């Protein structure tokens, strides 16, 4: 780990209980409790010049329930050319994370996307609606227990069989 990143991580560990901190292929990520994520990101933006939130996403570890999700904030410092990832573990039952849309404005749409795709509620979000799926969609598609779904191709040998299953408005 680089020296500058090392000192940033050390401050995070001492002041914000960021634990554990892991490194893989030169990328550093630290885990933080949901309740402290807003102050951690505010600190990183204001005092460590992480101006840009490059990406915000989530991972579903189903059937693992506690924590089932990890919400991931990929931060970039343009002035110091650094990257740091903050991960927030969230339990599967009633997943809730405080919103960071007040810290990074880009989180507004990103959180709507995660709400839409994973069903994670971002508390205090100004406009938490579905963003990609239709507003009356049921379920959250990127959850691992959401079926992928497919359609069987219709060939000559199974043409009749599939035709029977298709909706027929005339019947």
């Amino acid at each position, binding site marked *: 780990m680089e020296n500058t990143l090392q000192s940033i991580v050390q401050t995070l560990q001492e002041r914000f209980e960021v634990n554990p901190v892991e490194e893989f292929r030169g990328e550093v990520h630290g885990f933080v409790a949901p309740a402290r994520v807003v102050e951690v990101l505010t600190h990183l933006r204001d005092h460590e010049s992480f101006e840009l939130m490059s*990406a915000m996403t989530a991972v579903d570890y189903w059937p693992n329930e506690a924590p089932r999700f990890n919400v991931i904030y990929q931060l970039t410092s*343009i002035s110091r*050319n650094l990257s740091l990832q903050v991960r927030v573990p969230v339990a599967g039952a009633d997943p809730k994370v405080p919103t960071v849309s007040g810290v990074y404005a880009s989180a507004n749409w990103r959180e709507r996307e995660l709400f839409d795709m994973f069903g994670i509620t971002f508390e205090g979000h100004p406009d938490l609606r579905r963003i990609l799926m239709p*507003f009356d969609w049921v*379920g959250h598609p*990127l959850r691992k227990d*959401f079926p992928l779904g497919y359609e069987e191709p219709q060939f000559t040998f199974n043409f009749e069989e599939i035709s029977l299953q298709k909706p027929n408005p005339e019947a």
Partner: protein
Amino acid sequence: MTQLQEVTVDELKHLVSDRAIQGETVLLNMGPQHPATHGVLRLLLELDGEIVVNCIPDIGYLHTGIEKNMEAKTYQKAEVMTDRLDYLNTVGNNLAYCMAVEKLVDLDVPPRAQAIRVILTELQRIASHLVWIGTHALDLAAMSMFMYAFREREIILDIFELVSGQRMMTTYFRPGGVWRDVPVEFEAAVRNFIKLFPKRIDEYEALLTKNPLLLDRLLGIGVLTKETALSHGVTGPILRASGVNWDLRKARPYMGYEQYEFNVPVRSEGDNYARYLVRVQEMRESLKIVEQALDKLPMGPVRSDNRKFVPPPRSEIGVSMEALIHHFKLWTEGFDAPNASIYSAVEGPRGELGVFLEGDGGPKPRRVHMRTPSFDNLGVLPEIAKGHLVADLIAIIGSIDFVLGDIDR
């Protein structure tokens, strides 16, 4: 999976101002089928006369569940989905994904493959900017510009067809290198383009850069400040037009970009015109990179010989038992990646194109997230459209240069 229900007015009340509820301003629906929204984007506009009070983008019409589909495919097969994200930057999407896979499994890329990747990615950047300049000018009533831009783009697509057999959805880059070496005609085709294109950019500039009709629509319109841009996660030419010198090719060189000399155009005005100038200049810089990479193009293999991740050449399968086994294993099972995550980003024509990739120890990814630049770039539209005329909104949309396939994924 949908249950038909109506959206009540109360649910959407917080999006518009109180004046809209009292009937003082007009709510106007623009899109999803509208020629100036560059795809299926719907904008709900709150208008006071012709002035935009609020602009509420409604996206998702092109959502195809690409991230979900990629989770169900092996690492090699999932690459095909990446072409379909940003259909004006197919080669760049392949590059971002391949680099992510290579980083996750720690796979090397031979120098010749790196140089070929750079040449094609930069040509793709030019092709993407050509579509931008054509459609942007078309929106602003310079119709012939559209024909000129597509005429040159055709030459680039022909080069893609030459190397990969496909004009747009190439999937030519593969984890560990490229699919096969470039044909002998490749160099002449690219040299021809390098010779021809600078004159053509001069022609575009003669037509547009000092054109008073265009200046009226671009100068001082849609000003985006540095702070707003950074907070909204805006990257790419738009960020550089707002005075932030941030280009991943310079800041974090990949694929040997550190060997090539090129400038990163930066403007400080942050308006439509600055974005126009930055992109036009970028086309010239990309051409410089293409020329240098072609001059230096090293000889050698174009794909890693790590047989755990890269299938053996066809000629070996008939004579080598190991080659046959590797080939069979790779195309039936795929290769295993570690149970860990990486984030890898490249500089696409629209900005930071990142891939978050998490493996689960098996041959399929646990999660692939494509951090597409258009998503965040469009998110800033409501901020910069406020207070402008509807006609200027068209110019701003054009200058943001988003691709809906990139946003909706």
